[in-house]
């Protein structure tokens, strides 16, 4: 399986703190995507990082990718209560028709 495996499974922090979630995968990828899921907005795409990229930013999000270690991390800076959600990484492999394989996710709780 090429699924992304997120770590930790659950994370609880105070508003204003940074949150870091890690993802490991098992084989070569073309890109890796991060998604967020909460009850209000469903599953939403956050960021896509290609295999030839090492770091990418989007607002308060910073994603890194280390293909030699087959790992990625998602950093949320200055977290807000609205960031409370489950976060999934999903590696994508072209030879599987562009299929995303989701892991079980990291459940982030941001307390006001």
């Amino acid at each position: 399986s090429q699924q992304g495996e997120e770590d930790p499974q659950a994370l609880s922090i105070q508003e204003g703190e940074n949150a870091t979630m890690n993802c490991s995968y098992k084989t070569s990828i073309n890109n890796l995507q991060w998604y967020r899921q909460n009850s209000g907005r469903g599953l939403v795409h956050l960021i896509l990082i290609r295999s030839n990229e090492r770091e990418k930013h989007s607002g308060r999000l910073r994603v890194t990718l280390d293909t030699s270690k087959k790992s990625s991390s998602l950093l949320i800076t200055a977290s807000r209560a609205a960031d409370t959600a489950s976060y999934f990484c999903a590696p994508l492999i072209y030879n599987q028709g562009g299929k995303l394989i989701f892991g079980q996710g990291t459940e982030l709780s941001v307390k006001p």
Partner: protein
Amino acid sequence: EAGVAQSPRYKIIEKRQSVAFWCNPISGHATLYWYQQILGQGPKLLIQFQNNGVVDDSQLPKDRFSAERLKGVDSTLKIQPAKLEDSAVYLCASSLTSGNFEQFFGPGTRLTVL
């Protein structure tokens, strides 16, 4: 831009009954996906269409699940007969095409099988 539409939002059925879900992807999106998400787990791909052709259905339980994508636009997913373990949220997603593109997800259909 309208998002991915799904209906119904909720469905409760008895085991051995049949059920169908409908999905309308974002206009112009060639690739359509159906996922099953069991509580506490990440989404699992059931089937992927490119236009009206099946790209991947390796994890679709074909003895009871079927899906079609009429004219390369709307899609239906059917379960017949349903089992207790089919209780899950069924998510439809679409993307411009397969590969280096984000997927846009619909709100899902929460299925409860009693």
